[in-house]
Structures are given as structure tokens and as C-alpha cells.
């Protein structure tokens, strides 16, 4: 039939044979080619189908690949070291305990370089090349916010560990989750207490970047609602070395100086604020990010007296249980300063636990939903929405809930004061109080998948 149709449309040559054809035993070159192509196409189709089946089989029975999107170099490298160590410890523990639903967990780590552009590029590589089924992600707010559109486009569950509230706010999606706190949660946890106990007139100084802006917005809302006064923010460029021009602009009648920095800028802030004697005239208040991976002792007194909102108390005695103790031992840190044995590194403890616990949260959701492969992601997402995590070896930070509506972790928080180079908890804000203080502002659970 095909040959006849072909013949009817094909002009004849002068000797009566079809153009371009040589008739050998009733099989023309053209018919041979068309048959071969048809056969090849059928074989390719079968091969693709077989390969897909094989791939699905392999995916449904082989190791479960989880991508870890981590700041191993760049500005957040001192935090990334701990996020990586925590994720590796969790992977080892999960695999020694039989894996996830009987399948081995394979953790593939990519370095974001603490850079949103590089981070987004490497995230695609994790999902598309390394075939990561889930991602535990970045603590760098810029990288985190650049990652959410990518994971949403590639329909991949993504846990962020950064604090900018947008990740579980206006830029959040059905695929983005966060077990830790965001700026909304930190403001709700600490600002009312600080307003009552430290002062009513606030100045906020922070880096000129998403995390700082987010803190300013959330804290201003809380303080002004309570009847306090918040001066215009003082934003410091990320590349600033000399902070005196910014510190000098702090209004003299400020009662509470709320600072939000990280890494080198934190050191510069504490050092230079101390040298200007700011702590003599105002209370210094901050969040754990400002002094993450830093020991107050290494600041040589510059952080003495500062109030900090922690997510996981640095000292064991303020969450004194076997799980916390075992977690410290697993990461090789002491129970007072969270310093690594045999080195002077200090655990970025209020954040790095998320890289550890996110893997256990995924394990719980995968096993609860019966997930086998990518096409079963809906079940995992539904299992994560409202997931309850008990205080245990896998959730050493404490019991928590991943709230269904805004995919945010409701956790215990601690307001501590640095005294004699140690973090002493002054007030614990329970996860139940946090839930009451933080009405969900978004409902991602209604978004279609």
C-alpha cells in the first residue's frame, strides 16, 4: 500500500524505473529504506518504552536520591560546613537503620557557592542530571529565593533552610517547605518579649539584602502594633568593611538596637559597635543567624550581653534530653559552646539541624505515602502538609509540626543572653505559642499540583 502510493506520486525516468530506485528481487532501494526506517522507528519506540519501564523500575526499587543544595564555599561557607556535616550524619543514620522504605538513601551534594545564579544552575543539575527526587536546600536567602521557581518548574519538593519569609510567603508554592523559622516567626517569637523587657524605641541595622529587608518588615510590624517606635532601617552594603559610617547614624535615643548580620559582617558589627560603646546606651538584640558558627569567646567580649533568638539552644542544659546529647555527639561538638572537637569550628546550630531533620521528615512522608517514584510525589506533598514530628533521634531539635497551610515549621524558640561567653536561655517560646502568634498568611495546600 505504501509502495503503491509512493509509486503513484513518483515521476518515472526515461527507462521506466522509478527515480532513485533499483528493483532487486521486487524490493526497490526506496522501499527498503522505508521498511528499514519503519522497522527502526518501531524498534526505537520499543526501546524507549523498555528504557522508560526499566528506568521506572530502577527508580522504584533503587536508591532514593535526595539532593543537598549547600553553601560549601563563599560567604556562607562557615555555615555550609555544618549543614553538610549534619546532612551526611542523617544519611548515615538513615541507611544504618534500613534506609527509606527499605531503599538506600543516596545524598548528592552541590555547592551553591553562596551565589544565587550559581545556586540556581546547580540546582537544575541536581534535579535533571543527578535525578534527585527531593531537595534539601540552601540557607542563603538569595539562593533559596532563586531556587523556588526552579523546583516549582521542575515539580520537585524543596526544603529551604534560610529565613527570608518569602520562601513560605508570597514566593512560596506547593513544592516549598521549611521546618525552621522565618523572619515572620522570629519576629513573633522574640519581638514582643524584647519590647516588654528591653525597650520600646527600636533601630534596625542589617545587610542591604533580602534577609535583612525581610527582618525589618516583620519586626517593624510587630513593634508598631505593640505601640513602639521603629526608626528608618540602616542598611549596610554586603561588601562593607568599615561599619562606622552606618553605626554613627543610629539615633541616640534608640533603646533596642536590632542587628541582623551573618559571617564576616557580624564580626565587623560586634567589633565596631563595641569599640564605639553602643552597648552602654542601648540594648543589643538579634537573631541566631548573627552569631551562627561563631563562639562569643572568639569575639573577645564584643558580644557580651547581647540577646539572641535561638532555634536550638546552644547549651545542652536548656534542652536537656538524650536526643540533644546524642545529636551533639553525632556532630562531634561539645555541650556548652557547640565547638567541634579537635578544631575551633562552631556549629551553626540554630540552622544546620534543618539539613539533618529534613531528611528524616522526607523519610517519614515517603514511608507514610508509599512513594515509589516521581509520579507519586503528590502523596509525599500531602503527607508533608501537616506532618507531625516527635522529639526523637531524627528530630533532636524537638517536636514540631509542618503546618499544612503555609508549609512552615512550628517549633520551640529560645531567647538567650550571652553571659560569660555562653548562651543562657531567658525565655522559651513553645511551638504552641508560636502557632498562636503566627496565623498562616498563605494556603499553599489549595494550589493544584
Amino acid at each position, binding site marked *: 500500500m505504501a509502495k503503491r502510493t509512493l509509486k503513484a506520486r513518483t515521476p518515472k525516468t526515461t527507462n521506466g524505473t522509478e527515480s532513485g530506485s533499483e528493483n532487486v528481487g521486487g524490493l526497490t532501494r526506496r522501499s527498503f529504506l522505508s521498511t528499514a526506517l519503519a522497522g527502526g522507528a518501531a524498534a526505537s519506540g520499543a526501546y524507549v518504552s523498555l528504557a522508560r519501564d526499566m528506568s521506572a523500575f530502577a527508580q522504584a526499587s533503587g536508591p532514593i536520591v535526595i539532593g543537598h543544595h549547600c553553601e560549601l564555599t563563599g560567604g556562607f561557607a562557615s555555615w555550609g560546613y555544618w549543614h553538610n556535616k549534619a546532612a551526611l550524619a542523617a544519611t548515615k543514620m538513615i541507611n544504618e537503620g534500613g534506609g527509606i522504605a527499605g531503599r538506600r538513601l543516596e545524598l548528592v551534594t552541590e555547592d551553591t557557592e553562596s551565589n544565587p545564579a550559581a545556586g540556581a544552575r546547580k540546582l537544575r543539575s541536581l534535579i535533571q542530571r543527578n535525578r534527585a527526587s527531593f531537595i534539601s536546600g540552601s540557607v542563603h536567602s538569595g539562593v533559596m529565593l532563586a531556587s523556588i521557581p526552579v523546583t516549582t518548574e521542575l515539580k520537585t519538593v524543596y526544603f529551604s533552610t534560610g529565613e527570608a519569609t518569602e520562601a513560605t510567603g508570597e514566593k512560596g508554592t506547593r513544592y516549598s517547605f521549611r521546618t525552621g523559622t522565618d523572619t515572620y516567626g522570629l519576629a513573633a517569637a522574640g519581638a514582643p518579649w524584647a519590647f516588654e523587657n528591653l525597650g520600646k524605641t527600636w533601630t534596625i541595622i542589617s545587610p542591604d539584602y533580602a534577609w535583612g529587608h525581610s527582618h525589618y518588615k516583620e519586626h517593624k510590624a510587630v513593634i508598631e502594633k505593640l505601640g513602639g517606635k521603629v526608626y528608618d532601617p540602616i542598611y549596610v552594603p554586603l561588601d562593607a568593611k568599615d561599619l562606622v559610617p552606618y553605626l554613627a*547614624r543610629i539615633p541616640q535615643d534608640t533603646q533596642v538596637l536590632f542587628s541582623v548580620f551573618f559571617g564576616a559582617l557580624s564580626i565587623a558589627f560586634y567589633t565596631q559597635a563595641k*569599640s564605639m560603646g553602643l552597648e552602654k546606651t542601648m540594648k543589643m538584640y538579634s537573631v541566631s543567624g548573627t552569631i551562627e558558627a*561563631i563562639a562569643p569567646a572568639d569575639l573577645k567580649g564584643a558580644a557580651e550581653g547581647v540577646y539572641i533568638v535561638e532555634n536550638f539552644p546552644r547549651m545542652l542544659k536548656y534542652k536537656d534530653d538524650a536526643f540533644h546529647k546524642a545529636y551533639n555527639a553525632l556532630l562531634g561538638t561539645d555541650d556548652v559552646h557547640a565547638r567541634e572537637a579537635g578544631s575551633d569550628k562552631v556549629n551553626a546550630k540554630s540552622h544546620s539541624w534543618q539539613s539533618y531533620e529534613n531528611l528524616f521528615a522526607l523519610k517519614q512522608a515517603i514511608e507514610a505515602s508509599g512513594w515509589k517514584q516521581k509520579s507519586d510525589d503528590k502523596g509525599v506533598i500531602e503527607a508533608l502538609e501537616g506532618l507531625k514530628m516527635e522529639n526523637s533521634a531524627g528530630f533532636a531539635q524537638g517536636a514540631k509540626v509542618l503546618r499544612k497551610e503555609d508549609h512552615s515549621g512550628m517549633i520551640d524558640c529560645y531567647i538567650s543572653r550571652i553571659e560569660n561567653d555562653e548562651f543562657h536561655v531567658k525565655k522559651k517560646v513553645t511551638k504552641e505559642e508560636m502557632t498562636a502568634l503566627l496565623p498562616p498568611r498563605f494556603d499553599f495546600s489549595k494550589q493544584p499540583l
Partner: protein
Amino acid sequence: MTALVLALAVNGLVWGLIIALIALGLSIIFGLLDIINVAHGDFFMLGTVFVLVLTMSTGSYWLALALVPIIGFAVGLVLERVIIRPTIRQASLTIVTTFGLSMMLQEGVRATYGAQPRRMAPPIEGTIPLFGIDYDVYRIFAAAFAALCLIAFFAFLTRTKLGTWIRAVRHDPETATALGVPVVRICAITFGLGTAMALLGGAIAAPITTVEFRTGVDILPFCFMAVIIGGLGNLQGTVAAAVLLAVLEGVVTSVTDPTIARIASLGLMSVALLVRPHGLFSGATR
């Protein structure tokens, strides 16, 4: 407001003098060797790391301050021989070479010294009142010491035989060679001196700023701006431009936000390039 402007102008002068020392090192390396040294900021970073490590091991900041430029000079000589000399006088190639060197220095420090930022306690404690703010005494010392180093360097350039040779090679290397000046050795010494100045700047700035592997990344653009505004290879111009830029940014920051202050600095650079394309002290051109 006036007090704040004055305080920040003084602070700009202080910071500008420290930056000038670092930028001067960059300028002499470019002026003599045509090397666009992208790793210069990392030499500054090495200075902060070395001074902290030496202070912790010897117990004396002052001894560390004396040792760091000597170490810097030695590091510069080695790097010149191994990395710079094969690419000398090929400006575009030196960008690639020194960029690679920059990454090696940063990652080398991260791998050995660690990623966590650290504080270096100032060797001189205390503050003095300055236009309404308590100002760190160490900063005054740091600025005075940086100024002394700058004066000493210019005296060395103009009053010593070696300094004369450096200027001669910078002016006309072929004639200098013909007159028996050891040009290859002078190039190595110049690179060593430029490196030593960056490390010395780091040693002075360490108690003010932070010690970590990326400290040099942020300081480099400011140094390049000073070198460009001052005139490529123009040493006096570089110093003047560094101080001017720092004072201007400090003053503008006192009345507006840091983004506007940075735009003002860049605007100044553009105007300076238009009005005096060959540097601040080279005379106006049409």
C-alpha cells in the same frame, strides 16, 4: 547633622589612608610591570590572616605587625618568579593568571585556616569623643601608622638608589637596562614591595575589620577605583584618590543610604576619568 558629617569625614580620612597603602601597592605593580593584579585584595586578606596567626603564636601584635610585611615581601618574590614573570608585560594574560592566583589563595586559606570569620582584638583599647561619637583610638593609630608608611615609601622612592632604579625602570626599562640597572631584579623587588604593602595594610586593618578568607574580595574594587582615578601607575594620584573616595563615601553616607553613596563614588570616578583621563595630577585635558 554637621557633627555627624564631620565625624564621618574624619573616619573616611582614617579608612582612606589604610586603603591608600593597599592601593599604592596595586599601583606600583601596575605602573612598573603592567600587571593588572586581581589577586591584590587576597594579599590584603593574607595580611589579616598572618597577623592574627602570628599574634596568637607570639603573643605580640607589634611583633606580628613587624613580621607581616617581611613575609609579604618574601611571598611576593616567590610569586613573581613562579607565576608573574612568565606572563610579564602581557596585561590581558596577567588578569587570567592573577585571577587564578586569587582563587588559589582564597581556597588555600579556607582549606587550612578555615571558613569561619574571626575577630582580632585591637592592641590599643579605648575611645575618644569625636564630633558626638565615641571613636576607637586604634583607628587613629592605624591611620597615623599608614600615613607614616606612605611617607616612608615615597622617601624610599626618591631618596635611595634602589628607589631611583625602580623609578628609572618604570620610566624607561630599555634605557635603564643600557645603564646597567638590573631590571629583572628590580621587577621582582617591586612586585615584592607591592605585595608587602597589601599585607601590611591587612595587618593594620585586621583589628578594625574581620579576618576571613574572603576579606580581600570586597576591598579590591575600591583599590582599583583609587588607582584608576589617581591615574594608572601614578602613585601620588592613587593615594589622593583613595583618601578622596573614602572621605566622599563617608560624608555622603551620613546624609543618604549606602547605595547612593556608592553611586556617588562611581559618579566621581566617571567625572574624574572625563576631566582628567590620565589621573588627578596629570593636568586637565580637553
